[in-house]
């Protein structure tokens, strides 16, 4: 299989505090990679580095084998057309209606409002939302609907890679599973490569082709769902089973003392 994304020895720190130290990761084309890890482990920063919202201090990010770490502004925005991103809190533009949000990318390309509206309604149907929602404002929707609308916006320009930042956080179990199914559907039907950050293990097992665990800015485990589930790494074991006792909490207690 061809690697769609390659992360090579990426380091990133803020104000002297190391967030990522030497991350190496590959995501194969058309597969989904789930990145797990506790809060503050550097997952979101890694995602923003791959997306180009943050520039790594050192290391490389390759997309389709091409180094995209230090792109010029014009090339960076050009590359963004390949990406779709579902933000943790949806990040819908609250000054616009749902169809304007979904079709934002198309509007920027100069497409007519009637065309944009029709595509937006089509994408709404793809994520399981009725067309009358198109005319509402984001504040009038529930959390789950906002997330689905944000997903519709992320897929509107038919990106090759979709990034999901905690897609199921804050949703009820049924809506979470609907989002999981959508992620799988997008991968299977559109052939997109997915990178998903989550700490919802049920969701992770369902959608992942491969998994990676980050801990204190380092990758401590990578493998298939089965390999992660049968790990003998005590940190991973504590995390995936959600145990209060284990090496992760022990380190926090030692630090406090």
């Amino acid at each position: 299989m061809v690697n769609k994304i390659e992360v090579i020895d990426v380091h990133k720190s803020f104000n002297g505090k190391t967030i990522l130290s030497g991350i190496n990761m590959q995501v194969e084309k058309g597969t989904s990679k789930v990145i797990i890890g506790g809060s503050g482990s550097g997952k979101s920063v890694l995602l923003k580095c791959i997306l180009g919202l943050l520039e790594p201090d050192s290391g490389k990010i390759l997309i389709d084998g091409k180094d995209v770490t230090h792109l010029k502004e014009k090339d960076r925005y050009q590359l963004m057309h390949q990406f779709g991103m579902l933000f943790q809190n949806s990040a819908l533009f609250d000054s616009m209606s749902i169809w304007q949000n979904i079709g934002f990318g198309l509007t920027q390309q100069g497409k007519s409002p009637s065309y944009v509206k029709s595509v937006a309604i089509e994408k709404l149907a793809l994520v399981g939302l009725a067309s009358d929602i198109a005319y509402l404002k984001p504040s009038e929707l529930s959390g789950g609907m906002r997330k689905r609308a944000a997903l519709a916006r992320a897929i509107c320009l038919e990106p090759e890679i979709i990034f999901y930042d905690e897609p199921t956080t804050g949703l009820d179990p049924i809506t979470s599973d609907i989002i999981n199914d959508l992620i799988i559907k997008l991968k299977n039907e559109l052939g997109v490569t997915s990178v998903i950050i989550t700490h919802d293990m049920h969701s992770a097992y369902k959608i992942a082709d491969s998994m990676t665990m980050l801990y204190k800015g380092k990758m401590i485990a990578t493998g298939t769902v089965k390999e992660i589930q049968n790990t003998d790494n005590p940190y991973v074991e504590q995390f995936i089973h959600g145990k209060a006792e284990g090496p992760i909490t022990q380190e926090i207690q030692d630090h406090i003392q």
Partner: protein
Amino acid sequence: MNIVGIIGKVTIKATAEAGSLALFFITIWQQMFKFPIYFRLIIKQCEQIGFNSLPIVLLTAFFTGGVLALQTYSGFDNAEVASSQLGSVVALSILRELGPVLSSLMVAGRVGAAIAAELGTMKVTEQVDALITLATNPIKYLIVPRVIACMLMMPLLVIVANIIGIGGGYVVATDILGLNPHTYMDTSFAAIEFNDIALGIIKAVVFGFIIGFMGCYHGYKTSGGAEGVGRATTVAVVYASVSILISDYFITAWFI
């Protein structure tokens, strides 16, 4: 911490802030002249910044003119001198200083705060990041239209404020102080030169830029949730107001 340490820390912070402001300034100017130009957004911002600020600017201008007439009149020794001078004093004060400065301070409070709060909220809710992932430059899409609208609308607001301010002075001078309306208007217009009007307009363009720039800068650099948005809003208004007063001195000094 010793005194040298404190001075050092403050200097480093101030230099970093100045550098950050300068870089932001350059970025805005670079993006201002690059395609695409979002005319529709500029017009929308003109409506919000200019048209919607009219009531507050007009109210301020009218009462400023009125109180200026009252205060100046009471300062004159006799009524004869007052009737021949009051019109010109009010008109020149409004055109050169009070019209542009007071209107800009009111707009800084209304518009500067609104811009900082809106952009700050967009920043902390990742809407700015979302714009970038949708291949849209946030400086070009969010900031340039606001700064241009401020620079276009402020002179227009000041022109209207000048007229209403002189009108306020006229109403007070003739209806309350009992001065002759014709003499008052004649002395007003006789004193006004083109330079007085031009000075007010130049100031308005500069103040408009300051309001837009400070609102956008502090909004765009917001971090830290709701508290950060509140801080950005306050700082934007304070920085804009202080910068308006300081630049007012230098523009006047340069012009005279």
